[in-house]
């Protein structure tokens, strides 16, 4: 059974004329890692807010259709019930940090305090979560003394520690260096393998191709494509509609017109590209 179930969901922010989400139908199975891509303004953040209950609980406006997560309908539940099942890491970590805590350790424990987790368990969970995201050495620092990348990891950790059934991430690696990005993707992949459902708005297609099970391409509030990373990320539609695409895909697409890419599919990862291009090289160039 799908843990996330959106049926005919349309949403319009207050004082706007066009809906930010239009007739979204989306079912996600438990433990699936779904990446959501799209140009800025396509509705990625709005979808994140809708899944996280910020819409309709915090943002007003007009929501229609059904939003159901873990068997509960968002319009028919309190925000308190909702946050026990769903966690959201914000796009801008600075907006997420509570401002009420002096250390990173306390900041990460904040959510657990609010839902009344016993003190001993809280300590264990905070330490585990910090280890998973590689920030144990920041425990005693002030959240505001950190770099953008460090703050982003703190924001992510403070959601992971809640162990939500559904983890919603709005560009969680935007401030991270490439290796940091890979580490965060790989930590999130681990959570998905443990059964956590992950929905992540993200631009970095190379890592999406490596780690996600499924990709949804949003455009102007509608689902344009929905499928496996290869199906979606190599689609000609993406390039036409101004989505960011992998350099591997785009180079192979051009090479195909020059007769230098002979596979019937296009690559999204380094490995696929290397395999596909190798036969085009003359033998001595391949070191044979």
């Amino acid at each position, binding site marked *: 059974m799908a843990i996330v179930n959106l049926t005919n969901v349309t949403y319009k922010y207050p004082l706007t004329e066009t809906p930010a989400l239009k007739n979204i139908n989306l079912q996600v199975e438990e433990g699936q890692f779904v990446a959501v891509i*799209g*140009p*800025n*303004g396509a509705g990625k953040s709005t979808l994140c807010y809708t899944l996280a209950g910020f819409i309709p609980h915090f943002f007003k406006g007009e929501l229609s259709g059904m939003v159901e997560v873990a068997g509960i309908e968002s319009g028919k539940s309190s925000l308190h019930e909702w946050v026990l099942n769903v966690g959201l890491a914000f*796009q*801008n970590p*600075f907006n997420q940090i509570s401002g009420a805590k002096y250390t990173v350790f306390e900041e990460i424990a904040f959510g657990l305090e609010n839902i009344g987790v016993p003190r001993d368990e809280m300590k264990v969970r905070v330490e585990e979560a910090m280890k998973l995201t590689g920030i144990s050495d920041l425990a005693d620092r002030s959240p505001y*003394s950190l*770099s*953008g*990348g*460090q703050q982003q990891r703190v924001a992510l950790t403070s959601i992971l520690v809640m162990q939500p059934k559904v983890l919603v991430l709005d*560009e969680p690696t*935007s*401030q*991270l*260096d*490439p*290796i*940091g*990005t890979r580490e965060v993707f790989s930590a999130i992949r681990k959570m998905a393998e443990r059964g956590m459902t992950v929905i992540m708005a993200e*631009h970095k297609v*190379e890592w999406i191709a490596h780690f996600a099970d499924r990709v949804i391409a949003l455009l102007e509030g509608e689902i344009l494509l929905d499928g496996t990373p290869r199906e979606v990320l190599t689609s000609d539609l993406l390039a036409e509609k*101004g*989505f*960011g*695409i*992998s*350099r*591997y895909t*785009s*180079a192979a697409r*051009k*090479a195909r017109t*020059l007769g*230098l890419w002979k596979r019937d599919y296009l690559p999204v990862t*380094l490995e696929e*590209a*290397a395999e596909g*291009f*190798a036969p*085009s*090289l*003359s033998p001595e*160039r*391949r*070191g044979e």
Partner: protein
Amino acid sequence: MNIEICNLHFTYPSGVQALRGISLTIEASEQVGIVGQNGAGKTTLVRHFNGLLQPTSGEVKIGDWDTRQYSVAKLASRVGYVFQNPDEQLFSRDVRTEVAFGPKNLGYPKEQVQALVTDALEMTQLSDKTETNPYDLSPTWRKMVAIASVIAMDTPIVIFDEPTTGQDAASVARIANVIRVLRERGKTVVTITHDIDFCAENFERVIAMSQGQILLDGRVNDVLGQEDILATTYVDPPQLTRLGRRLGFRETVRNEAEFLAVLHKQSL
């Protein structure tokens, strides 16, 4: 106007040694990308260019000005700085006022302020949004307002701190175009970025930093070819550079045109 840095050390009040002996010359009209892991000292370094930070020891000179002798306000006439987070920099009620703030403060005559503002708005494709409150714009367009408000100051040196963070493909292309125009006008551009593909496609000189020091400094293809050294500062070479290496290309390629050219040559 050169930037000259001599044996620069900087230690934050917390005791963190963020810069440990940086010596560096950036010539007038150069376009430099700075890469390196989070915490390498990239932002700390460029904040010395406009006096936001002062050396713990060593020297930073912008043209003939030693930054210790000049206020941030004074240095603003030579160095424009686009912050990583546009929200740290925007405060006006509408886009035009925001963009006019910098040049007005620098004391340009009224007509020149107008011309600079119009030019900056055109370059950033904001001409149709001049009356909008910056905070009613999407983060992507707020970034463009932040860029425009610095461009309009017409400083010889412009610094971008992570300009492509969270931007989509169209916005990244707009930012690349701004950098291209600045290059044509002979401006010095220093850009911090984690987006190594963007760096490879837009800069001729690349500096890789690690733990408060300069690890590599040179022409883009030479620096990006040093895969092992880059890995120590958590930087992966660009996608097509890695692919070229994997395919056994002798040359280091940095973008699609170079990749396809070598592929074509080696397929014969």
